[in-house]
């Protein structure tokens, strides 16, 4: 019976998805030659004006780095409030969790769109968008790391007369530091990837150049930008993996 209900739910999900997306293979087929023509025109990639591209790449890294840092500052108090061993008070714990879920639920892209309207075009809006969404992600992951930490040292501190705030600051946070730092690096790496498209809404970074090139159907330029994006993402990925390994 349960299996049948599961199959029914899965069928509904796929049926509904097919209904709204309406995949059209013949349309893809007719579009393929156009795509091939563009790809042909994209080679060799156009790296002219490289300093401008690099400046945009630096914007992307800046948006991700400052956005993640601001997110961490916002996430720390929320993560502590949302970790049961630190704040075993449902009146604080549940609202903190709900706020983290709400922040996490809205994509950085959407936040960036709102901030572009509020503070104008440019990487600053992108950074704010990244920060707000990431605060939710970091806070949630941090609170989970704090909840799964060994409870014994915390209990020992509490039994020695420490307040929960003291025990969290002196024992729990240092004990969980490798996990917390690992989360931060992971989110930073994710944000580098996410920041490359923020330019599509005018929030700076390589995405801005990408949008301009696509609008002009300049595919040699598009390819050059994509190569830069991949290089950036791979570098961030390797660096983050290396640092996380060292933290372990």
């Amino acid at each position: 019976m349960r299996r049948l209900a599961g199959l029914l739910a899965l069928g509904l999900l796929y049926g509904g998805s097919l209904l709204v997306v309406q995949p059209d293979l013949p349309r893809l087929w007719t579009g393929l030659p156009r795509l091939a023509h563009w790809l042909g025109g994209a080679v060799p990639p156009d790296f002219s004006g490289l300093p401008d591209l690099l400046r945009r790449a630096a914007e992307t890294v800046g948006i991700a780095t400052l956005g993640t840092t601001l997110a961490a500052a916002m996430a720390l108090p929320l993560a502590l409030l949302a970790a049961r061993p630190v704040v075993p008070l449902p009146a604080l714990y549940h609202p903190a969790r709900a706020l983290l879920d709400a922040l996490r639920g809205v994509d950085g892209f959407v936040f960036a769109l709102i901030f572009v309207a509020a503070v104008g075009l440019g990487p600053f809006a992108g950074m704010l968008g990244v920060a707000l969404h990431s605060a939710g992600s970091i806070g949630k992951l941090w609170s989970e790391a704090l909840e799964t930490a060994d409870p014994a040292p915390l209990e020992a501190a509490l039994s020695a007369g420490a307040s929960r705030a003291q025990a969290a600051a002196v024992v729990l946070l240092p004990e969980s530091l490798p996990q917390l730092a690992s989360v931060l690096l992971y989110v930073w790496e994710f944000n580098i990837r996410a920041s490359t498209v923020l330019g599509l809404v005018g929030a700076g970074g390589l995405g801005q150049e990408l949008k301009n090139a696509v609008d002009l159907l300049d595919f040699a330029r598009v390819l050059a930008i994509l190569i830069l994006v991949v290089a950036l993402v791979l570098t961030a990925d390797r660096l983050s993996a290396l640092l996380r390994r060292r933290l372990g």
Partner: protein
Amino acid sequence: MLRVEGLVVALQGRRVLHGISLAVAPGEVVAIEGPSGAGKTTLLRAIAGLVPAEAGRIVAPETALVFQQHALARRLSARDNVLVGALGRIGFWRPALRLWPVAERAEAMACLARVGLGALAGQRADRLSGGQRQRAAVARALMQRAPLLLADEPVASLDPENAAAVLALLRDLASHGGRSVLVALHQPELARRYADRRLRLEEGRLCRR
């Protein structure tokens, strides 16, 4: 001086201790023996105020508890772990920023020297041996300046040599420091050697010896 009268403790609806009465005088080491599950840990945790009593009375001075598995913060140095014992009497910001008061730092060093770990103060807890960790846990308890030391199977995971060293230390803290020591042990030969008195706990009740 510790006095427990008619202590009843229930955990998750199940009665674990049935009317325990005992006393420990200053300078005295009392061992509680008994099989696993007899209620030794619950008794110590109730005296330390970590689990609530359903009935009975506990008259205890300030209490420090040495946990079975040392409960040290692995990434902190031995000294910082000992300083955790002082958190009850200092504010929030200084310890949080690692700006421990000079007097507390000196006292932590003295506590570590007392347990023979003076030279390893800066060593991270996870780099200490099992015996050293348990001695650091005793130093943390000393840092609490409590006249009553409770030790829950403090030598359960130690080799005979280290077990003897830790128990000799507790014995010495009672004899020369005037503290009362209540220690849960499951090795009768160690209890005979280091305790002034031995009590036996079985299924949550103290048995006459």
